[in-house]
């Protein structure tokens, strides 16, 4: 390509970008996202320096809940439907198609198995897509892919180390206003640690052997408003690639809590049936 060709290429590029509309003001959103990045970086440094146990104690002092600024509404940066003005849950005008996959590869599920109106399906899919975008940002980099599962609003498939895992992010209306006792039974492969975040919100970090004693899943359980919130990653051939504390790091993010609040106020799942007391 000679100079004339390069000049023409530049001219073509100029004309191409001239068609772009002006952006909304991204600065406030960038500040919020940047604050979260700083916070997580600090926590990561603390974790590296002092080890997991000490970091747990120190990390709690750095949680977003202790920072009054994090109560600001925040948008999901990588969500296709997010705009500068859409600061919390999905807006009614969100119509983008979510990235979805079938729960079982190769098995086409029935379309709209719950018989939901189209608008409700779209609303749930938008919520799921926003959660997926947040997970993409907030889970550790070893998780290389996050995909919402079609028509399963709380289910995602994540990939790490060449394996795929089932992850859930459930915000389900529940009559249970309290967490159950945190019982730690390491002999049976069941570890439970109670922590607080977001001010004084209690949560259980659970690591549990599933399928075998060698493979464990990670779980985070807490209450928000009238809902029970559960984040989980089940093991496959190997243990879950995300620890309970890494799930907590997701839940600590103010944008994630905004999305939880949205789902609590505008449920995307049906109410859990009453628990059956054990005999």
């Amino acid at each position, binding site marked *: *390509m000679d100079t004339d*060709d*390069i000049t*023409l*290429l*530049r*001219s*073509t*590029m100029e*004309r*191409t*970008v001239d*068609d*772009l*509309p*002006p*952006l909304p*003001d*991204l*600065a*406030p*959103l*960038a*500040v919020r*996202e*940047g*604050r979260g*990045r*700083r916070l997580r*970086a600090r926590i990561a440094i603390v974790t590296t320096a002092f080890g997991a146990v000490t970091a747990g104690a120190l990390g709690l002092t750095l949680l977003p809940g202790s920072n009054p600024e994090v109560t600001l509404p925040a948008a999901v*940066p*990588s969500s*296709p439907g997010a705009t500068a003005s859409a600061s919390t849950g999905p807006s009614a005008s969100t119509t*983008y*198609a*979510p*990235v979805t996959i079938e729960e079982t590869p190769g098995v086409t599920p029935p379309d709209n198995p719950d018989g939901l109106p189209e608008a409700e399906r779209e609303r749930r899919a938008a919520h799921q897509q926003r959660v997926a975008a947040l997970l*993409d940002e907030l889970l550790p980099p070893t998780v*290389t*892919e*996050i*995909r919402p599962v079609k028509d399963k609003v709380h289910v995602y498939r994540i990939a790490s180390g060449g394996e795929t895992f089932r992850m859930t992010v459930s915000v389900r209306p529940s009559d249970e206003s309290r967490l159950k006792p945190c019982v730690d039974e390491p002999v049976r492969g069941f570890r439970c640690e109670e922590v607080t975040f977001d001010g004084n919100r209690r949560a259980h970090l659970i690591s549990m052997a599933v399928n075998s004693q060698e493979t464990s899943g990670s779980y985070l359980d807490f209450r928000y408003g009238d809902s029970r919130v559960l984040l989980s990653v089940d093991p496959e051939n190997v243990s879950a690639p995300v620890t309970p504390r890494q799930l907590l790091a997701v839940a600590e993010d103010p944008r994630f809590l905004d999305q939880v609040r949205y789902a609590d106020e505008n449920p995307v799942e049906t109410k859990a049936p009453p628990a059956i007391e054990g005999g």
Partner: protein
Amino acid sequence: MAVPTEVRPGSPAAGRDDVRHGPPVDVSAGAADGGFEEFARAGQQRLYRTAYLLCGDAETARDLTQTTLAKLYQHWRRAGAADHPHAYAKKVLTRTFLAERRRGLRDLLALTRTGGMRPAPAADHADLRVTLLAALAELPPRARAMVVLRYWDDQSVASVAALLRCSEATVKSQCSRSLARLRVRLGDTGLATTGS
């Protein structure tokens, strides 16, 4: 993704960026967060334009721009104190783009929005945009970044090589090959001779 730790003073990218896209922004007050929002507001559109040429999709470009700004905020002490913050921002943008391409998620999201990596066909004068974006989309991400940085951002070969952590010879050969492909693609549609 690691954020660059330095911007070479007087880099061609920095200087030309300001010349090509608007006046420089005073970020001298940026000891901590000061000046960031002004910088972001003044620079977001030019970052967005570069992101658009890299991504070929407006929504993805917007996401990339916002992620870049967030990373700049995260390291604003260093970024704001750089001699050429806009060049620093461009470096963060490009490396973020390449990192995300490696992860593949942006591609996935773009696919759902556009029905494919190539922009949807359009009519009239938009043909020009569509053809260029489609031609760029056919290039591998690193080659695309080289073309955009070299010919849109007007950066020197040395600057592009430093940014992409490769040799100058690689930049030259990749750009040469990419331009040949673009010439064929654009020439096929007659744009190279009709553009003005």
